[in-house]
């Protein structure tokens, strides 16, 4: 879990805040991060997952939204009201994650991580939860908005 210090997850925090503000006109505040399992999390309806690989570590970044927050974000981004998460709309979570990841990757690569490009996957359902298949701890970054909370989960373990 050596990579999960402030310097590692700060670019994701800044990326999320900048992305939601610029693309969806949503002001975002970061709450106190916690280790997954130590606190209850909201019921998520959609998540984007992206694998990260570098010479020194492997892991995943997951962006999770409750339905109301995701629909609100998409409505503000596209300027029309959405009442359900359709097949057409679901790629929005992947796009937001791509943008957050793209911004974080620049900073982390300047720090020498050599993170490669990656393609996100979308997970959708009622009250979905993520579970890491490694023993590595998962850091949860909770974000608060006027629409409700959304989370970024970061799981990373050394590959050396």
């Amino acid at each position, binding site marked *: 879990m050596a990579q999960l210090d402030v310097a590692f997850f700060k670019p994701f925090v800044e990326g999320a805040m*900048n*992305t939601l*503000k*610029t*693309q969806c006109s949503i002001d975002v505040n970061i709450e106190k991060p916690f280790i997954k399992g130590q606190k209850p999390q909201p019921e998520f309806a959609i998540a984007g997952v992206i694998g990260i690989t570098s010479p020194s570590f492997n892991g995943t970044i997951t962006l999770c939204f409750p339905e109301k927050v995701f629909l609100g974000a*998409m409505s503000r*981004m*596209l*300027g029309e009201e959405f009442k359900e998460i359709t097949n*057409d*709309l679901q*790629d*929005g979570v*992947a*796009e937001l994650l*791509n*943008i957050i*990841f*793209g*911004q974080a*990757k*620049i900073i982390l*690569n300047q720090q020498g991580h050599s993170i490669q*490009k990656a*393609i996100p996957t979308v997970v959708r359902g009622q009250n979905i939860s993520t579970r890491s298949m490694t023993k590595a701890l998962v850091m949860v970054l909770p974000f608060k908005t006027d629409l409700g909370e959304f989370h970024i989960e970061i799981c990373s373990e050394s590959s050396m």
Partner: protein
Amino acid sequence: MFDPKTRVLVVDDMMTMRKLVIKNCKELGFSDITEAEDGAKAWEAVDKASPPFGLIISDWNMPNTTGLDFLKRVRADSRFVKLPFVMVTAEAEQHQVVEALKAGVSNYVVKPFTAQSLREKIEAVHRKITGAK
């Protein structure tokens, strides 16, 4: 600014991002907008378009034929050497910008972006091709 009658091609594998770019293009006054979900379909549209497109706005990171591959294909055809091509991407590392410039991109928009920043990039392309100040 471009003539509002200019034919615009918007290319992105993500439907939500295509919708966003199209919404922004409409706000800029464009009404003749075609969309494609990957570089291969986009090339087919460019190759067959009559009248031809006057502006392409393409994502970079797409499966199969990427935006960069699409750009190279467009520039390799003598008909489209000067066709305005704006790349919209979350990939903004310096070597990637250089790669796109070498391939002949007209301008580069980094996500996240506002309607205003997209407008400024498109206007800059127009100034470049017309010599206007």
